[in-house]
């Protein structure tokens, strides 16, 4: 066939161009993530698509959180064609999206790009022979509105596993799952969580970079669909005092080609030496990485005693109060041996959270860390004295403490790189300062009448 135009060099580019033409796509959103984990988007028309794919799109990064640099603010967004999907809810499906990698104008990867940070950490693991797989349990609340001036209004009064077929929230959850699946985000389970209006959707494992993209998409889909119904979805870690907060437990495993590197036949809980060392690494550096996995002032109101959230650095097979759990799996299903890291919350930046978690685990493997003894006690009932006897360290109790731990951590510094490490600390210190100087309703009620 005589070519009508020069064919694109990359068949994936060609595929996207064809799909846009055939499906009548009118707008393509180029997505990327700022350092705080907020989704950013630049929209282009189909006419601009080919150039965007071949050359990338220049834009001024100075307005993006964590992108600002002193000398130059111009950055280049290069779409990752393998991530092209239509957004089924937007404009009758005539809007597509791709995730971007951010580059400096002269072509080197931009250090402020969280996706690049994760790519870099994944590459290190790959050089050691491992691919990193993640499956998250996403918890969130549906509220009547998102008005911050009053207490969030609950949508339902259901409880854990309640089959609340008639309520709006369940319809919303069902609809959300259907959109996620259409977008190639397979859902493992979904159910009503402990608290009224709290829901959980568990995603099927996939390779970590793709999962971080999926979490960004997930948060948007959940929020957009709720807004369409005149409701409000929130991933705030602890929106309501006295109720469970929203976590993002992560199921983690490393694969060496076909083989689950965490699995060993006949080992305790089928957990291999590599799995034990990774777990040890994660425990050893847990306090240092918490500022990244739990990055809000509010995150630390979830990590308190009395709720289903970890407070002590510990592990166990079947202990829901532990920081790391080794879920029970069928002995013949070697691919499902994994560990569950229970600290993170869904308001984190998934690219950065996966980066520091992987770095901590890999450090354990590299240095051959020993796994401490399993903690079988119910840690929700353990006090500081007993914890000291058991040799357990507490997770940071506040963002300030977590930042102190992070600032001293070579591991986190290396995993995030200078640019993000320094910017993150600066930004989060300032968030803490703002919070510290604030006089809350709780203080007024407690102190004003009597002092």
């Amino acid at each position, binding site marked *: *066939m005589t070519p009508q135009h020069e064919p694109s060099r990359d068949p994936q580019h060609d595929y996207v161009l064809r799909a846009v033409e055939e499906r009548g796509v009118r707008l393509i959103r180029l997505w990327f993530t700022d350092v705080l984990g907020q989704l950013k988007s630049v929209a282009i028309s189909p006419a601009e698509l080919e150039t965007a794919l071949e050359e990338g799109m220049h834009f001024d990064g100075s307005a993006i959180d964590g992108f600002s640099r002193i000398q130059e603010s111009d950055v280049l967004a290069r779409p990752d064609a393998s991530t*092209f999907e239509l957004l089924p809810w937007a404009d009758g499906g005539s809007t597509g999206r791709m995730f971007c990698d951010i580059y400096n104008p002269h072509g080197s990867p931009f250090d402020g790009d969280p996706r690049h940070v994760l790519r870099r950490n994944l590459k290190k693991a790959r050089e050691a022979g491992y691919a990193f797989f993640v499956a998250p349990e996403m918890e969130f609340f549906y509220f009547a509105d998102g008005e911050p001036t009053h207490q969030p209004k609950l949508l339902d009064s259901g409880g854990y596993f309640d089959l609340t077929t008639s309520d709006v929230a369940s319809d919303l959850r069902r609809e959300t799952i259907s959109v996620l699946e*259409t977008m190639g*985000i*397979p859902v493992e389970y979904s159910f009503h969580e402990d608290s009224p209006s709290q829901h959980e959707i568990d995603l099927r494992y996939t*390779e970590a970079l793709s999962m971080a993209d999926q979490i960004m998409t997930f948060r948007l889909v959940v929020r957009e669909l709720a807004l369409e119904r005149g409701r409000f979805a929130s991933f705030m870690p602890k929106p309501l005092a006295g109720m469970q907060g929203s976590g993002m437990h992560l199921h983690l495993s490393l694969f060496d080609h076909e083989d689950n590197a965490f699995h060993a036949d006949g080992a305790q809980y089928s957990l291999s030496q590599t799995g034990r060392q990774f777990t040890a690494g994660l425990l050893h550096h847990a306090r240092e990485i918490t500022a990244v996995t739990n990055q809000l002032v509010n995150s630390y109101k979830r990590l308190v005693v009395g709720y289903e959230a970890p407070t002590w650095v510990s592990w166990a097979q079947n202990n829901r109060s532990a920081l790391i759990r080794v879920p029970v799996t069928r002995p013949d299903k070697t691919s499902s041996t994994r560990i569950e890291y229970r600290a993170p919350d869904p308001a984190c930046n998934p690219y950065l959270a996966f980066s520091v978690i992987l770095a901590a685990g890999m450090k354990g493997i590299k240095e051959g860390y020993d796994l401490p003894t399993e903690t079988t006690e119910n840690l929700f009932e353990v006090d500081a004295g007993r914890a000291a006897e058991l040799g357990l360290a507490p997770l940071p109790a506040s963002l300030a403490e977590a930042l102190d731990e992070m600032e001293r951590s070579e591991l986190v510094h290396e995993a995030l790189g200078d640019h993000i490490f320094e910017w993150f600390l600066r930004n989060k210190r300032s968030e803490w300062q703002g919070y510290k100087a604030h006089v809350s309703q709780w203080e007024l009620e407690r102190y004003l009448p009597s002092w």
Partner: protein
Amino acid sequence: MVSSYSAPSSGPLPSGAPPNELFLLYPDPPPVDLVRSLSLGGYGWTAASSHSGLIVSDDWTGAIVSLAEDAERGWLLCRDLRRRDVPVEPLLVLIPGDRLDELDERAELFDDFLIAPFHPAELDARLKHLLWRAGRGVRPEMVEYGPLRLNTETYQAQIDGKPLDLTYMEYELLRFLAATPGRVFSRETLLNQVWGYEYYGGARTVDVHIRRLRAKLGQEHANLIQTIRSVGYKLGQSRWG
């Protein structure tokens, strides 16, 4: 058809049954020995004397262009057939043995050539081979299985007539599976054949993409792709049982 020909000549089978294969011939009238050989081989034909005003029919299996008479117009026709949105393929040229140099620089204009005068058995063998290569029976750009249709020209996928939006790798995986229904492929084979290189994440990548495909196919059609325990995956059943 050609504007000057209101009634182009054609040669359906004398038996009256519509032929399975219908070739466009050039020139009009076509060479007598060509017509005779095609009729003996059970092929139908229709003829055109020029490319101008020619309306390409979906029914054509391919084209046979004789360059013995007017080579220049013959090559023009070849070029025109190749430029169509759906090019007429396969395209066989008949060329006198003393003019083989014309084939130089024109490789893109034909799929095979035959030296004129030709032996009828050679024509038959070449046509059979060309048709086999083009995927006889199904239009070459379509891969179909049950409710599933994949257009490999436009990269479009449909299930039950509704568009299926896939990523490039999902599309390639589905196309590979659907091309040979019922055949079980190991995850390693799929990884090598579809991804085409040592893709990191190993065979697990295949599982992940199969799950995404099933999610997109929806509950009703998710089981189109079956897991064959400790072997791999297959799509549907073989036509041969």
